[in-house]
């Protein structure tokens, strides 16, 4: 379903990131292969633009959806016809992108906005003057079964694992649980209570798609999503360090799966990482365990209390925990039906 967005909206989301002279690669923080032209673009991860959706009448009816805007930058090589197709479209139908105008003249930028359900992952391609290609802006590229590359995006509140394998997620869960207080017995009970008290209807209205109501309040999922998109440059930090931590714990506890180790094993590891001195850590593969710990702590804190659209704070359990302990009426400011503010639409 195509949604009307005016050219002002598209340019607002393009100029700052795309308009520039020269070829400097100032936006490569380690996330790109050599020569990837996306390194010249500021925050290429923003494309396609995943934004809130409102049908003009009902916030409840609108809440399960996002407005996703596909952008093709044809300024360098002008295109006549641009279209998008993907798994979000019925029978892979093509949706044309329109030329975006400034002062009545073509800007060279093409765009279209499509309504897509929250919580989903999709693959797509652009057709530019007859030729299919992956989105030259979006860094998320995935290989489908036939080995062909497709562009990928995911919508808000997505709970489908995109980055980490099951074992990585479980290990990450153990690490994170030590950083945040949610595994303390009384808090564990509280969080479980939050999830149990979410009745079926509110689950469907707030979180329309199936997701794992886990005890890390969605932090692992937040990290899975943030390194898939906005902080892709930290993907390697996680991959390497999770492997190293697995190795360290195995060598310290022969014959035992690190996932089954008691809390103390992770507490000791944490203390060592904080001082940057971890016995058995292969610094040749990753120089500073402390650096990784700080990254993990920043992501854990953010993921626990972030707006659930970013994949963390699932079921608003992080906010509920604060509300239970402190006067913190988060729902007053937040959009209904997530919160109870009916002036602000999210």
């Amino acid at each position, binding site marked *: 379903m195509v949604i009307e967005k005016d050219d002002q909206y598209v340019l607002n989301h393009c100029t700052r990131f795309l308009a520039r002279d020269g070829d400097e690669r100032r936006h490569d923080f380690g996330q790109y292969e050599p020569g990837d032209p996306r390194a010249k673009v500021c925050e290429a991860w923003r494309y396609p633009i995943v934004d809130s959706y409102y049908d003009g009448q009902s916030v409840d009816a609108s809440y399960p959806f996002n407005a996703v805007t596909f952008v093709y930058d044809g300024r360098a090589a002008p295109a006549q016809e641009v279209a998008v197709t993907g798994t979000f479209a019925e029978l892979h139908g093509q949706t044309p992108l329109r030329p975006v105008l400034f002062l009545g003249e073509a800007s060279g930028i093409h765009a279209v906005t499509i309504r897509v359900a929250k919580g989903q992952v999709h693959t797509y391609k652009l057709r530019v003057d007859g030729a299919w290609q992956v989105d030259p802006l979006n860094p998320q590229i995935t290989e489908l079964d036939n080995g062909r590359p497709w562009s990928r995006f995911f919508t808000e509140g997505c709970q489908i694992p995109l980055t980490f394998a099951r074992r990585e997620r479980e290990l990450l869960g153990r690490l994170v649980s030590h950083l945040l207080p949610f595994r303390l017995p009384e808090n564990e009970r509280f969080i479980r209570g939050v999830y149990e008290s979410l009745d079926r209807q509110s689950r469907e209205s707030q979180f329309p798609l199936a997701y794992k109501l886990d005890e890390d309040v969605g932090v692992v999922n937040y990290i899975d999503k943030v390194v898939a998109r906005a902080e892709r440059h930290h993907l390697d930090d996680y991959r390497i360090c999770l492997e190293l931590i697995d190795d360290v714990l195995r060598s310290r506890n022969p014959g035992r799966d690190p996932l089954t180790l008691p809390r103390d094993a992770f507490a000791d590891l944490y203390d060592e990482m904080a001082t940057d001195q971890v016995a058995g850590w292969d610094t040749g593969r990753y120089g500073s365990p402390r650096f990784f710990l700080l990254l993990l702590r920043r992501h854990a*804190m953010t993921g626990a209390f972030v707006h659930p659209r970013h994949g963390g704070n699932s079921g608003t359990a992080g906010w509920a925990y604060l509300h239970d302990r402190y006067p913190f009426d988060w729902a007053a400011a937040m959009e209904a039906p997530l919160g109870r503010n009916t002036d602000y639409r999210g």
Partner: protein
Amino acid sequence: MADEQREIVIIGSGAGGAPLAQTLVDAGHDVVMLEKGPLLRTQQQSPDGLSDFKRDELFATGAEKRLTVPGMANIGEAYFSSHVEPDLNDEPHVYRDTDGADRATIEGYTAQVVGGGTQLYGGVSLRFTPDDLRLQSFNAGRTDLRDDPNGEVEREARDWPVAYDELEPFYSEAERIVGLNGTRGNQEKPASVDHYQPPLEPNPISRFVATGMDALGMKRYRTPLAVITRDHEPSGRTVPADHESIKTAFVNRYGDPLGLKSNTWISILAPMSAKANFELRANCVVTHLESEGDRVTKVHYRDPAGGRRVLAATKAVVVACSAIESVRLLQLSGAADPGGFGERIQKSGRLGRYFLTHCFGGASAVLPERADKSKTLDSDWATDHCARGEFVRANGLWAGGAIYNNTSDAALPISLARTWQAQDMDNIWKGYLGDPSIVGNGFERYMDDNFGRRVSVSFMANQVAQPDNRIELHPTVRDKWGRPVAYVIKDWHSHDQALMDILADQCGEILRRGGEGVQFSGQGSVGGQVSRIANHVLGGARFGSDPKDSVLDPDCRAWEFQNLYVTDGAFMPTSGGANPTLTIQANSLRVGQALLGRL
């Protein structure tokens, strides 16, 4: 193709550009305004009923990025910016640090968006005092100034060429059209009219600040804030039926999706955006000005797609893109035409010099009671106690400042962590991450001790004007358009440090006298840190009555040009003892009147 001709071109849509635009448009003149940033609308304005501003902590401080600007000593370091602050790799501001190394900084940038800094500011809208505008006279012949061995404070102080009485009607008009709430009594700033809307109930944490101020005999008033609490006739805005719902900690560093925060877009520009003689072009960055003799004739800019375009200005050009960027634009224009524009704009040798920010700092405490700080605006109580001439003289200071409490700081969970012991935008997250004890049980203790329990009191005071505090074009660093970036070279004067110590102690006293159970945490200031700017960028193109001593004449017109005006904070010869936005707005209205008389 002939250049597009327009009467008046205004560069920048914030506090400096918008008020003057209103004066000119209302008088029927043809005005086009160029704004570098996007036009982010409120829900009511947006065709789809949604705003591009969100109540989402990741909008104020977004994803981590890493500095890659060649030659910077902080290359590789993490930085975080909001969705409307410039990208540091694309458009860095570079400052010279105390170790002599160059570093890029996010400090000193205002928002790049229609409405400029008024979209993200906390909305504190204080006037300056009459003495703030006459510090040369105030200090003439004094021998009691602290820590000023070379007599620079008295020598460099300047009276504004405009007295408070002349500015006063424009303050009143700015307060009317912008839309503020607050109280007038107990201010040291005389007002002819009271246009304040009623303030909302203070947050409970502010009670302790009121107690401390009262114990010290400091007369207090409700901090004037640019947030409407009642329907606002001049801008046609209405408020929700439940006025208390207006209070949200998504205020400082957040744009307002509901349009209740009185930024210049919603207050001033939007109401006239349908007029045929006004056009706002967002996402358009001006690269340089071109002149013929004593007239600026052309404004060169890049359109939203980066294409080169030119506007021919037949009557006037107004530069108002925040002090650092305005100075830089004038310097870049001079570099493009050294014998013409360059010679004229730099005739006094003062362009870029006497760059100012504020002496600022304060104190903080942990309170015995916990409050919901998420229901608040940016400040509740203010006092002009330390802005009074008696206080200033009794303490051997050259000037005073305003004191007010902060209520929205650390009010939301992620912001509590990322601003924890972080002194500025460059240090975000570092304090929290640097403390390894904030985990597990320690995390819970940390939240118990701090969440909803912290209060801080700030001062905002005059900084001594110094010729070597300056903005230059950086010799090597270029922005994404290949243009030299702004190079900020500044330091604090020894008298600044003395002033900051005294005012920080006053803030500390307020909290130490705040009542039983208040645990004083500490006090301090920005002294010693050259990068700190508070996003108050002022001076660099100061106005005055002597063409040899200033860049702009008393009407903020460049001395050697007939039709070039600068109306953001760059005009200030002294920085005033309060947040500068309202004064920039009032002055913009004043310059608008002067310009009207010449058209």
